[in-house]
């Protein structure tokens, strides 16, 4: 077992969580008033945890770098949230959601955690409806569902293309209720700079007030990190500009193991990069793959003519197009999971079939859907022998009703009308399945330090299914942490308030100040973005959608050299004693420069292909991922030992008692 104890309760899978809840220690309401909990990050996981813990009676302090908890990046999730409600009666169940999630994750997640997730999923929907979250409904007044990639049932609840926004505002409203009661102190425009440990336990954080520049000490009996993922290590991603790894990385440096850092999700349907000025990438919801067909020209010369602007996609006849997902994966077609769809797009573009100026784009075409919907509508409207124009018009109206906001967004960005000409899309970094290692209680390897939501690693294995991130964030925050933290804090009822005057706080604060001083006094020649973009290029080219040993070794060397250069030559204007956005970025990029190297090292040691991690050396003759369950059926958890190259690997063997490991096939 090594030093990693997953603390998964004994007993049958379906009873574990109930048994666990029946046997944990509780804290009485009077004692909860004497216990403080810090929650860093106010997205779905952090916001939900803060609200529920405060409601239970604990004193909660929240921290977010944004100006309001409502702006956390959970807000940008578009498509939906899964729950095994089986409202559609299409055969869904907790077990099926559990099974789909483990299979979708390519058998690299922990069974017990995923089952618990499936088990509480239905409650999330009940909870959110009670809070007034306006989910989409049918004319009968009941909740509507849609379908997402990698599954064969309709279990996704949604609120147009703004599901994340509505769920986050629900959590934010629950937080507001507790702020109003004085049970949550909300520290906005604050960034966690370090984790403070006393006698081996997490007992507080050092935070920087981003407006005044003040360095503050905050103590608590437990610390929850719900700080999201680290996709911005790639510079270009669908993450918010401020999304960063600092809180998780600072905890890692204090002893929290980092698990599976190389498991990154590259989302297949994003708007392609248009130029060097690009600051971020925009996602087009996976729901578009319900109706859009993905293709590239079948002939190289046609692809070239399109790139040169001599040919238009609409001029190509059916036979001249290659609907490569439908060709390769007839069973799931355009709705294969994200990792499979992304790799297939890259394969076609690498082979020279890309369709935009840079050669890195494929088509997502709605012409067939418009025609199909148009014909249906013509029939149901009693129009016989409708001409082509009428059918197209009717079809467009239906597509607009379903995806109008996404089409409008595309048109604003690309300046092309997606009703007339196929959309161009390309994969982009979207989500990180890896994160801080946690046990069944969501506790990291630092006692009293918990990680929730995207910041932990536990539920999605090597690939996350669509509409599962929102489910996991809210499950962790509303329904899991409140129990597991209570069990831990039952030992702390006599501890009393934690003083911030201890030597541990003193030295952590000094280290933070020294680091800031070093950054601000380094009057080098290059901006922070210069380094961030360089790091992003290394990551994308050598640790991106497909990886090989040679590139990964190169990446390790290059990132290490870039980090040295950064500390010697970065230029941070202004001062540290006030608002300074360049200084904020500098601290975040400094941590990405360490994480990036560990990421490459993790990818290099995992000699198999699974989920989002595709090693060119390990593939089937047809180019599909070749997993190695005999040697790699484990979670890689890295212990910090100074430089990333010195990090020590610990393995948590994954045990599958309820699912038979199979080759993942969507053919």
């Amino acid at each position: 077992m090594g030093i990693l104890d997953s603390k998964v309760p004994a007993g049958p899978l379906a009873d574990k969580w109930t048994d666990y809840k029946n046997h944990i220690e509780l804290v009485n309401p009077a004692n909860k008033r004497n216990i403080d909990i810090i929650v860093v990050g106010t997205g779905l996981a952090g916001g939900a945890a803060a609200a529920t813990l405060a409601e239970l009676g604990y004193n909660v302090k929240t921290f977010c770098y944004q100006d309001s908890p409502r702006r956390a990046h959970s807000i940008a999730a578009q498509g939906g949230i899964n729950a095994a409600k089986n409202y559609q009666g299409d055969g869904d169940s907790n077990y099926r959601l559990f099974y789909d999630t483990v299979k979708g994750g390519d058998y690299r997640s922990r069974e017990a955690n995923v089952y618990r997730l499936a088990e509480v999923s239905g409650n999330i929907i009940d909870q959110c409806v009670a809070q007034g979250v306006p989910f989409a409904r049918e004319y009968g007044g009941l909740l509507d569902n849609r379908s997402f990639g990698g599954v064969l049932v309709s279990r996704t609840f949604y609120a147009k293309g703004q599901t994340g926004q509505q769920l986050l505002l629900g959590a934010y409203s629950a937080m507001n209720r507790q702020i109003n009661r004085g049970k949550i102190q909300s520290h906005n425009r604050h960034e966690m700079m370090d984790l403070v440990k006393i006698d081996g336990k997490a007992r507080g954080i050092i935070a920087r007030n981003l407006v005044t520049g003040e360095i503050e000490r905050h103590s608590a009996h437990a610390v929850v990190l719900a700080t999201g993922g680290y996709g911005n290590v790639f510079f270009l991603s669908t993450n918010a500009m401020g999304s960063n790894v600092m809180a998780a990385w600072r905890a890692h440096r204090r002893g929290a193991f980092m698990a599976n850092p190389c498991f990154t999700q590259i989302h297949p349907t994003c708007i392609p990069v248009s130029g060097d000025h690009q600051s971020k990438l925009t996602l087009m919801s996976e729901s578009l793959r319900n109706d859009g067909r993905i293709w590239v020209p079948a002939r190289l010369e046609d692809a070239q003519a399109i790139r040169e602007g001599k040919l238009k996609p609409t001029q190509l006849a059916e036979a001249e197009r290659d609907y490569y997902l439908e060709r390769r994966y007839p069973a799931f077609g355009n709705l294969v999971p994200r990792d499979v769809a992304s790799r297939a797009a890259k394969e076609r573009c690498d082979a020279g079939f890309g369709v935009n100026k840079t050669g890195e784009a494929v088509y997502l075409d709605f012409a067939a859907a418009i025609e199909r919907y148009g014909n249906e509508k013509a029939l149901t409207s009693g129009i016989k022998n409708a001409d082509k124009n009428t059918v197209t018009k009717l079809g467009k109206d239906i597509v607009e009703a379903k995806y109008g906001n996404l089409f409008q967004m595309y048109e604003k960005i690309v300046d092309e009308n997606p009703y007339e000409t196929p959309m161009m899309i390309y994969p982009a970094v979207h989500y990180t399945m890896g994160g801080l290692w946690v046990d069944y209680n969501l506790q990291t390897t630092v006692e009293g330090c918990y990680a929730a939501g995207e910041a932990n690693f536990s539920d999605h294995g090597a690939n996350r299914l669509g509409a599962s991130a929102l489910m996991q964030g809210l499950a962790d925050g509303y329904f899991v942490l409140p129990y597991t933290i209570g069990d831990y804090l039952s030992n702390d009822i006599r501890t009393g308030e934690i003083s911030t005057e201890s030597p541990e706080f003193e030295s952590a604060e000094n280290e933070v100040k020294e680091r800031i001083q070093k950054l601000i006094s380094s009057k080098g020649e290059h901006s922070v973005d210069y380094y961030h973009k360089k790091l992003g290029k290394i990551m994308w080219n050598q640790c991106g959608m497909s990886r090989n040993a040679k590139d990964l070794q190169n990446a390790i060397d290059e990132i290490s050299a870039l980090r040295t250069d950064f500390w010697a030559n970065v230029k941070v204007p202004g001062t540290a004693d006030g608002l300074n956005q360049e200084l904020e970025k500098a601290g975040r990029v400094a941590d990405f420069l360490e994480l990036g190297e560990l990421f490459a090292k993790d990818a290099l040691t995992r000699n198999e292909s699974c989920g989002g991690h595709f090693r060119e050396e390990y593939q089937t003759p047809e180019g599909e991922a070749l997993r190695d369950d005999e040697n790699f059926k484990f979670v890689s958890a890295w212990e910090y030992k100074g430089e990333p190259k010195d990090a020590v690997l610990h393995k948590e063997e994954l045990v599958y008692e309820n699912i038979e490991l199979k080759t993942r096939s969507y053919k």
Partner: protein
Amino acid sequence: MKLNLKIWRQQDAKSKGKMTDYAISGVEGDMSFLEMLDVLNEQLINKGDEPVVFDHDCREGICGSCSLMINGEPHGPDRMVTTCQLHMRKFSDGDTIVIEPFRAKAFPVIKDLMVDRSSFDRIQQAGGYVSVNTSGNTQDANSIPIEKDNADDAFYAAACIGCGACVAACKNASAMLFTSAKVSQYALLPQGQVEATERVQNMVRQMDLEGFGNCTNTGACEIECPKGISLENIARLNREYYSANLKG
């Protein structure tokens, strides 16, 4: 494209600010407005100057962070977009663009183009929620059917991103559109009924305390709102408010 920028620079909340001129070249139509400012900032940093501070985060029009007054309009000349989604193809070579922060007594400037919108949070804290515990021990989500039109209208109201464009556009710096969006969301749903009286009274009281102005039905807020929040919500808030006061 070459552009002349006139940008509000202000060191901090206490300092006096002023408009400063910048020339920028090499701007492409495919750039977003904020990417154009990134290019300017990169130039300023390379010269050793302090970059222009502005709020931004998701850059896909949903977080509500970005908040620029561009040529006198919140989020600039395009409709139904936030500043981060505004593209430079809406401008022409040689244009002069005036960039200011959202201005209101209740939105004090923090630095340059960044303002403090915590007054919005306090309005929400005064009553923008349903008092239900997050234990999950609620009834089944489908036990109360909700008429689709009401559910849809509640959604359209709830789509507010809290950017503050409505306040910046209003000659009275009123927060009525913002406040009414939240009041409407709950007023349209059965879950919001129980606390309806207190909610609207508390939220309106907080809105006044923060120093936002009154609504005189000018309608600029609706036109400038990047999410198309309708004036109907203000009518609904007034109805809710009067009936709450009649109930006492």
